[in-house]
């Protein structure tokens, strides 16, 4: 076996052991994606400039340990990953601080869309009509009127305000993902833009 092949085989073995460590055996990626989402959140809220890259670094670090035959005795895999994440965050803190200063030095942080609603229209059209109606109604009105309106929606649906809030949260998350997809396709070099 060549050296490259041996390295590749060890990497695959490490990933396989990582998935087993996470209890991923039959879950077809759901456990892995769930843990990754929490790692990305952790790094975002710690102010990391590349949360997704850092999350991947956590998995790489653990997979390497497992591939090298090290035993991980932690009972809770997710808690162990948190510990590794904190460690990796500390390692990269100097680099983060340098990049954060550069970002704060740039003018206005608030994203400004000249036609904010028009930018979202295509994404709203992809929603189920009931979801579109719900999220637009949720954002209608202002001040006391908006609060009363939301209570009225919750009463109509027979759910609590918290339940309504979570429902709208998931719809807005879907809109965010759609905006990111649209943004990515607009800057695709293949389009010649």
């Amino acid at each position: 076996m060549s050296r490259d092949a041996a390295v590749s085989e060890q990497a695959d073995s490490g990933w396989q052991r990582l998935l087993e460590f996470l209890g991923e055996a039959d879950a077809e990626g759901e456990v892995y994606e769930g843990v990754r989402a929490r790692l990305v959140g952790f790094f975002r809220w710690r102010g990391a400039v590349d949360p997704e890259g850092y999350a991947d670094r956590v998995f790489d670090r653990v997979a390497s340990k497992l591939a090298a035959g090290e035993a991980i005795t932690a009972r809770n895999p997710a808690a162990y990953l948190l510990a590794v994440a904190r460690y990796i965050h500390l390692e990269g803190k100097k680099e983060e601080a340098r990049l954060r200063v550069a970002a704060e030095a740039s003018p206005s942080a608030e994203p400004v869309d000249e036609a904010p609603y028009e930018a979202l229209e295509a994404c709203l059209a992809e929603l189920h009509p009931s979801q579109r109606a719900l999220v637009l109604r949720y954002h209608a009105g202002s001040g006391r009127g908006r609060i009363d309106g939301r209570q009225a929606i919750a009463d109509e649906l027979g759910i609590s305000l918290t339940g309504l809030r979570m429902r709208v949260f998931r719809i807005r998350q879907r809109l965010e993902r759609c905006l990111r997809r649209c943004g990515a396709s607009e800057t695709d070099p293949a389009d010649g833009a």
Partner: protein
Amino acid sequence: MKIVSEERRETTEPERRAYLLGRAEEAVQARVEVELFERPEVLEELLALEQDLAEAFVRDALDGADRAAFARRLATDPRLQDTLRVIQALDAAPREARADAARPETRRGWSTRRWLWAAPALAALALLVLVPRDEFTAKGAGEPAQVELTCLSTCEPGGRVALRLEAPPARPYVAIFVAERSALSWLTPASDAASGRVPADGLWPEGVVVPASGPLDVYVVFSAAPLTRKAVAAAVGDDLSGSPEVTLIRRRLEPEAGE
């Protein structure tokens, strides 16, 4: 004296807000992060709270220190910028857009349609209109799920109504049964099997047979794991009201006095 570890107390909303704004003390930060990794649902709770902060920021409802903290986070977090864009866009929606969305007849894609059929006993008297009612009864915690019905070839008794399903991401397994008068009949799972995943295209191949007379209730049960018929029945309950362990949706087909 009983010592209660400070680490174990669940974090409060103000503590989580401070964490999201980057203003939490180290001990609070540690507790939030432990919760985040010990309880998967905490991620959604934090993201929802972050959306609330973005909405307050847009409406200028954050106090000076919080506003400044949010703005600092916004400067370096593209995901937060996306969140803000969505909030700003929804707030800026014109009145006509809200009115259009609120109209109940507005449908896209797989739209439910009216169809006419003549019940054998009443053919000489009146046409009965079988109308799928949008009784979206979703029970159980979890993301929105969708169930839509549409006639395939004929909408007369014996014809087939197709189901289009969209499962919540965390509950990809589906069981379907039909209640007609007091009788239940299962579409899936088979008697000796457990529920399977929703097909990738969301289309349930078998569909439902249009009854000779209505109403007909179609129950769709989404779950996080495969369930046998017995387990589905236990989760749904004798009164077919559902439980937090599953997402239950009912669609009713019923005759309506028509033209």
